[in-house]
Each structure stands twice: as C-alpha cells, then as structure tokens.
C-alpha cells in the first residue's frame, strides 16, 4: 500500500493517521479536512472554551513536533465531494481528485438544524468556528438564551451560558431529557441540575418555529408547539447530529445512519475503513470521544493487513461536565436495567450507581465520583474483553 488518504482531520482521523505511522506505514499519507484548523479537541467547545477558561491553543490535538513526525500531506479547507471505489479516487470540491490505495473515512457528523431559513443569533455547536461565533454572540452583553434540546450538548451549553451570567431556558421535546442515555431515575437527577443553577427547563414541548425581525433577520423569540412564545436574543440548537455520509451517496458503500462496517471498522470494499462518529461499527454507531480513539488503532491495523484481523469491542464510555458536576457513564444499558446506588448520595450530586440486569452489572454512572467510577468501569471493560477478545483471529 503506497498511499493512504484520511478523509476527516479531527480526533478519529488524526488518531488513525498516528496509528498507521506507529504500526509501520511509511508510505504517502494524505489528510483531508474541510475545516481550516489543524486537528483540535471538540469536547471543551461547549464547556471551557465557551466560558473562556480554555483558549484555542489548549484545544490542539497535536503539537508542531508531532505534526512534523507524522509526515503527512495536509489538505485543510478541502471538502471531499465524492468517491469512486472502482478507480479508488476521492473527488475534492474545487480541486483535482485524489487517487489512493487505502482510504480512511473519518468525516464525523454534522448537527441537525431546525427547518426554516437561517437566522442571525441561531447557533449549532460542533466546530471551533461554531463555538467562536457563539462566544462572540454571547459577548455582546447579557442575553436571553434559549437552548433547544436538553441532551448533553444542550445541558453543557446551558451550564456555560448560565456561568457567564445569561438568562437561560432549555426546551426539551421529551417529557424528560437524557432518558435514552441514563434511564428515568438517573435522568431525573441530572435534569434537576438546571433548576439548581437558575436555568429553566421546559419539557414535553416541541418548537414550532423561530421569530426574527430587522434587516439582519435576527432571532427575537422561539415559538413553542403549545402556543407560547419565548423571547430570545441567542438560540442554540442541540438536537443531535447526523453522520456525514452525503459525499458517499452512489459510491456503492453501504450507508445506513453511518458507513456500515464490520467489527474491525472495515467496509465491504477492500482497503476502505471508517472510524469515529461516521462509522456504524458492527451495527452500532457511537458518538463517543473514546470510541473514536479506540477504533483508530483497530482500523489502521486492518487497513494495513488488508483484512479484518482485529476487532473493536470496548465498553462505551462518555462523560459530561455541567454545572460543576462531572457525569461519567460506561457500559451497555438496556431500558429495563435497574440502577442501584452503590455509594454517595444523589442529593449531594456525588454518587456512584450501577445498572443491573439479573443481578449482573451492565453499566455504571457516576456524578462527581471519578475514582470509584474508574474502578467499576475497568471491571466492566475486563468482563467485555474476556467475553469478546479484542483480536479473536490472532
């Protein structure tokens, strides 16, 4: 394999490029990213970067020395527009196609938007540019901020905006946010954090539309499905993401809410792998930071072997920082699993809980209990590894 092209210059793409080099690939390595920035870490964008506690230089995922060591051709500000699997060439918007031997698809996901025309003052939060635009808007002065969507991004943005002194309302269509992730009882504890920090949480209310006025068409209010109207100076839409597979339509790669690949991140087309938020690995698409980094090593190995010689079966893990509370979750939880308090107290916002099924722990959740959480998470991960060895074909 002479040339490997990585489409996507964020966490999953960078980690795969690193893994290719560390696993001995010394050919031509091309990294294409549609953003103009070098790889940076996204999780702080809704937290410290928004409040100003973290600056842009602290977001970098690789320093100059490492970038040099990677010895890659960087095509930043370039968007992949299509893929011809027959000639193994990637169409690049406004540039010549890239012909490659191996291909890593790491195009991530893009935020879902509200229907209707674009309005000034309405934001989504995914990229550094998004975060800078939101930060600039929030810096105009005390604002009435409406966050649409009470998931993790919405909650973190609400928390950051409240910390900056803005008047914040979170609108959630479901009766309670985070139920799919945490289950009813634990979601209730997390939802209570909003009110404790002066943020209004409206649930069971869909959004009917946005009101705007003036020459700039700036948003003035959010109309809710129940007929009420929320005045708004700034609106942040956090209603989930969709994987960025549009450029792969017609390529012949199987697409179904992501690029379908096997447990080793390998697609049905030889020498094409997918990693990160865009990848549906063995029927499951994770939008987790840790999954992206773990998949990278496996995908690199399989790409270089030109076969699935290793698989990715780790324990899903995610965290969220909001209102000074660190929420950590790991495991495979089913809606019927029952949470059991192991230590601490939900009232103190510091506790560890295990989800159980037939007396067995399936997942673990902690609020401000990193140490015992880590112990339980490792135990669970070990069980998963024993049941499904990482590299069964070795």
């Amino acid at each position, binding site marked *: 394999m002479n040339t490997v092209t990585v489409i996507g210059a964020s966490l999953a793409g960078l980690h795969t490029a690193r893994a290719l080099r560390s696993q001995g690939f010394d050919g031509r390595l091309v990294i294409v990213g549609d953003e103009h920035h070098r790889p940076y*870490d996204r999780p702080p964008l809704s937290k410290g970067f928004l409040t100003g506690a973290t600056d842009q230089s602290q977001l970098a*995922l*690789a*320093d100059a020395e490492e970038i040099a060591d990677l010895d890659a051709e960087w095509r930043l500000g370039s968007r992949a527009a299509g893929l011809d699997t027959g000639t193994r060439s990637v169409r690049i918007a406004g540039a010549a196609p890239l012909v490659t031997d191996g291909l890593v698809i790491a195009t991530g996901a893009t935020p879902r938007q509200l229907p209707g025309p674009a309005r000034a003052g309405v934001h989504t939060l995914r990229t550094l540019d998004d975060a800078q635009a939101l930060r600039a808007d929030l810096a105009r002065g005390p604002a009435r901020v409406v966050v649409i969507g009470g998931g993790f991004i919405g909650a973190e943005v609400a928390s950051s905006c409240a910390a900056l002194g803005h008047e914040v309302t979170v609108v959630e269509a479901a009766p309670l946010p985070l139920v799919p992730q945490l289950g009813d009882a634990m979601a209730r504890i997390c939802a209570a954090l909003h009110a404790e920090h002066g943020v209004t949480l409206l649930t069971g209310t869909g959004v009917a539309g946005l009101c705007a006025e003036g020459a700039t068409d700036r948003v003035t209010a959010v109309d809710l499905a129940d007929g009420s109207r929320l005045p708004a100076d700034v609106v942040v839409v956090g209603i989930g993401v969709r994987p960025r597979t549009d450029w792969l339509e017609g390529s012949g790669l199987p697409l179904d809410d992501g690029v379908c690949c096997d447990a080793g991140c390998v697609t049905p087309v030889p020498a094409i792998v997918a990693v990160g938020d865009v990848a549906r690995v063995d029927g499951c698409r994770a939008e987790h930071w840790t999954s992206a980094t773990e998949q990278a090593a496996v995908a690199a190995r399989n790409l270089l072997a030109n076969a699935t010689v290793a698989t990715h079966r780790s324990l899903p893990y995610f965290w969220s920082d909001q209102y000074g509370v660190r929420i950590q979750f790991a495991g495979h939880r089913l809606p019927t699993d029952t949470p059991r308090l192991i230590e601490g107290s939900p009232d103190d916002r510091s506790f560890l809980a295990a989800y159980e099924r037939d007396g067995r722990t399936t997942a673990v959740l902690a609020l401000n209990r*990193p140490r015992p959480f*880590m112990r339980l998470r490792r135990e669970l991960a070990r069980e998963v590894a024993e049941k499904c060895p990482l590299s069964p074909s070795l």
Partner: protein
Amino acid sequence: MIPVCHLEELPAGESVRIDTAPPIAVFNADGTLYAIDDTCTHQDASLADGWLEGCLVECPLHAASFDLRTGAATCLPARRAVRTHPVTVADGMIYVHHTAADEGTAA
C-alpha cells in the same frame, strides 16, 4: 515543605490530593512515595483520582498516563509531562517539597 498526612494514612495503592496552587497528588506506589502535579496536562481532571498501576497513573477522564518517577506522559491524549516534586518522610509524617512553577518539569 508541605505536610501531607501520616504515612499510615497513605497505604500502598492509595493517593491523596493536596490543595496547593496548583494542586499536587501524592501516591504510594507499592511502598514508594511520589508527588506530581495533580491536574492532567490534557484536560481538567485530578490524577489523584486516577488508576495506579506500578509507577504509572492513568487519568480518570481520558486514560492518559503518566510516569510517577519522571512525570512524563506515557500515553495519549496527554503529550506534556506533569511536574514532579520531592517527597520525604520525617517522624512518620509525609512532606512534599513543592517545586516552584518556574523550575519547569522534572521530566
């Protein structure tokens, strides 16, 4: 010189965080005491809450790893070392000798 705790309060495998500025984490790694800056150089997490294995501590948030002997980052996502600080025991009491911030890392 900062008093930490009595030696018997920090058994092997345990760690304690002291609220200096910046905070310091003190570890008992199988009988040997180490002190390093407590905050992971990747993102805000306390290494005193981390997973201790031999002379390595793994960050509880993203599994970055540091060598307690040198402070060196041994596993991504951390790339920068943490500072190390000398530890002594006198009359059963553990003391950390705070390395001033401008002395750089010991790695």
